[in-house]
C-alpha cells in the first residue's frame, strides 16, 4: 500500500469524501493523510493510538473539528483502499480496516463529546 502514489490516493479519498457530503468543510486533506499514517504506525499499540487520537481530537476541536466528519472519512478511506488495492482487497482486509476505522472514529467522537461536556461543566 505504501508503494501507491500518495497524491492519487488522496485525490480518490477526497473525491469520495465530498461526494458523500458536498457541504464538507474539510480543510487540508494532507492533514488527514498525515494523521492516518501516524495511526497505522500505532496499529500494534491500540492503547497508545487511542491516547493519541483523543489528543488529536481535542487539539482539532479548537480549530472547529466536526467529529461527524470522521465517520465519512472512514467510509471514504475504505472505498479508496478498495479502488487502490483492487485485486488485493478482500473481505479479511476490509474487516480489519473497518474495525480500525471504527476504533478511530469512536475515539474521536467520544473525545469531542467529553471535551465539550467538561467545558460546559
Amino acid at each position, binding site marked *: 500500500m505504501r508503494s501507491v502514489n500518495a497524491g492519487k490516493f488522496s485525490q480518490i479519498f477526497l473525491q469520495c469524501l465530498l461526494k*458523500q*457530503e458536498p*457541504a464538507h468543510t474539510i480543510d487540508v486533506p494532507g492533514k488527514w493523510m498525515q494523521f492516518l499514517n501516524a495511526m497505522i504506525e500505532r496499529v500494534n499499540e491500540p492503547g497508545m493510538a487511542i491516547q493519541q487520537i483523543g489528543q488529536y481530537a481535542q487539539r482539532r476541536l479548537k480549530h472547529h473539528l466536526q467529529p*461527524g466528519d470522521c465517520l465519512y472519512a472512514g467510509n471514504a478511506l475504505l472505498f479508496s483502499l478498495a479502488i487502490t488495492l483492487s485485486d488485493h482487497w478482500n473481505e479479511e482486509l476490509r474487516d480489519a480496516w473497518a474495525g480500525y476505522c471504527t476504533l478511530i472514529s469512536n475515539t474521536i*467522537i467520544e473525545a*469531542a*463529546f467529553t471535551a*465539550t*461536556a467538561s467545558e460546559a*461543566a
Partner: protein
Amino acid sequence: MTEEQITLVKRSWKIFRSIDPAIIGDVFYSKLFLDNPRLRKLFPKSMEAQYRKLTDMLDSIISKLENTDRATSQIIALAERHLQYGARPEHYSMIGEALLWTLAHGLGKDWTEPVAQAWNTCYTDVAGSMINASNKALH
C-alpha cells in the same frame, strides 16, 4: 414507559445535554446521512441551525414525558410539521438508530442496559405516536 424509565431518560438526558449541541448535531446527522444517504436531501445544505433545533426538540419532548396529554399534542403537531418537510413513517426507524447510537457514544459509561432500554422504549413510544399521526394525515 414506566416511571423508572422516565427518570432514567431524564437523568441521562441531563448528562448528555451538557455536550455542545453543535457537536451532538454534527455526530447525529453524520451518522444518519452516512447510513441513509437519501435522507440528506430532506435537509438544508447548511445544517448548523438544525443542530440546535434537534436538541431543543428533544429537550421539549423529554420535559413532558410525565404529562401524556401535553406530550401527545406536541408530538402530533411535530409529526404533521415533519410530514410537510418530507419525513415519512419509514424514516423513523432510521432516525431512532442514529439517535440511540449518538446517545450511547455521548453517555459512555452512563449508557447502561437499563438506560438503553428506557431510551429504546421512549423512542418507540414517541415515534409510534408520530407514525400514527403521519399515517392519519397521509390517508
